């Protein structure tokens, strides 16, 4: 009795916090605060996974989303100017596009909720301790196995990694290499953000 009551209380606590934090994400004045609130939302959903006995999913959610992706967002925010978000009115086109995007997302969410059957009875509840089962299903190439999607995703990730390297790696600098003060190991690693010639061109432009 006490267990089920506390279960309900914890569920509503997590749900309410998730909603409040989501509102904070879109309403925060500072980008970094939005990122922190996003971290909160993702942690709350990890809590909901725990309540659904999907502890592996919860662990991965915290590890990948909270501890990885949001940290990267924070990292990117710290690299940008820590200016407040622009508060003036956005262009009408952007408002319309934003409204369309949010309406489409709402329609998709409502559609998913209406079309999926929710199992309320305990008979078909998911198995407890499903970590082993997830591992077996992922590498199972028989019926009901997910080895093909798994491999396709790994291929996709490989493509993304190579793409990332191609985008990040600029062409070889043609001008004089940027020196870091006579340290050869450092010089070999260091790629200047612009070549000397480009910099001179910029200087000329500024002078003009």
């Amino acid at each position, binding site marked *: 009795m006490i267990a089920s009551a506390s279960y309900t209380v914890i569920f509503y606590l997590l749900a309410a916090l998730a909603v409040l934090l989501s509102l904070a994400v879109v309403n925060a004045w500072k980008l970094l605060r939005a990122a922190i609130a996003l971290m909160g939302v993702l942690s709350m959903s990890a809590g909901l996974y725990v309540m659904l006995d999907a502890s592996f999913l919860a662990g991965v959610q*915290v*590890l990948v989303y909270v501890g990885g992706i949001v940290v990267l967002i924070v990292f990117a925010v710290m690299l940008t100017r*820590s200016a407040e978000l622009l508060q003036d009115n956005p262009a009408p086109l952007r408002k319309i596009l934003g409204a369309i995007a949010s309406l489409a997302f709402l329609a998709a969410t409502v559609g998913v909720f209406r079309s999926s059957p929710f199992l309320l009875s305990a008979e078909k509840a998911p198995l407890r301790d499903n*970590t082993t089962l997830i591992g077996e299903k992922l590498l199972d190439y028989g019926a009901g196995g997910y080895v093909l999607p798994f491999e396709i995703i790994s291929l996709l990730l490989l493509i993304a990694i190579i793409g990332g390297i191609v985008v990040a790696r600029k062409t070889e600098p043609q001008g004089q290499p940027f020196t870091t003060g006579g340290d050869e190991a450092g010089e070999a690693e260091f790629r200047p953000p612009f070549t000397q010639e480009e910099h001179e061109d910029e200087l000329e432009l500024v002078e003009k």
Partner: protein
Amino acid sequence: MMSILWPLITIALALGIMLTSASALVWLERRMLALWQDRYGPNRVGPFGLLQVIADTLKMFFKEDWIPPFADKTVFFIAPMVIMTTALLSVAVVPFAPGFSVVDLNIGLLFFLAMSSMGVYSVALAGWASNNKYSLLGGLRASAQMISYEVFMGLSLMGVVMLAGSFNLRDIVEAQEHLWFCVPQFIGLVIFCIAGLAETHRIPFDLPEAESELVAGFHSEYSGMKFGMFFVGEYLGITLISAMIVTLFFGGWYGPILPPIIWFFLKVFVFQCGFILLRATLPRLRYDQLMSFGWKYMLPLSLINILITGAIILAKR
């Protein structure tokens, strides 16, 4: 009644042990560094200077708790709490002795990795909220460093998981009854030690707080007990990493004659001393060295380790 009391007792014991050992570690580190550097170290307060930690804590409590006017107050306040919270939460899954751990989670190892990956927020947010260029640089360095080394930390442990066939830390310890994993997983052990050192950002990986270039890095603006929390958090991190090394690679509580819990803490103590010795020996790395070492050597090495472990396990079947 006992079913409610027992978990509470274990939580209190685990918290007590961890916090006491973290503060004892402060004293131990100062004394041992002094020994290696041929000086006395703190030896005036109490026998052997043992009460120095209490004196320092009292001092920190009575210092002015100042928030700079240019700081982001809420985030500045939250940041030091995160490091303590995540470190202490990870303690929940550590199996001290058979039947003595706060929770026996099936995803124990994942939980530990998740908590250590959340620890980065403390440093990154502290650096950003201080609104100071040195702090910001420290926070940036910390987030890049920790996000990189977290990858190797996770990958280095996969060999252990494959050998034990479980994420549950109790199962992992029990799988080491006959052979400690430090033998078959030696590469994993070395990578985990290095990554753990980088996660706690101590020398040689203390770039986020490199005092010769960044004042005190991310905690430049912190004073009083808020600084104290960063300080204790670092030592909690060392204790935790030592406990994890013992659990994952050195057979946890297993050992002859002495009771299991004593064995566990003896082993942890050895690794804590090892980390202090590392601090006394190694110089600080440069930032590009840190990154190239991680991504060029640690990542391929840990992937090869997983590959070889998997191949051997398959061949043995």
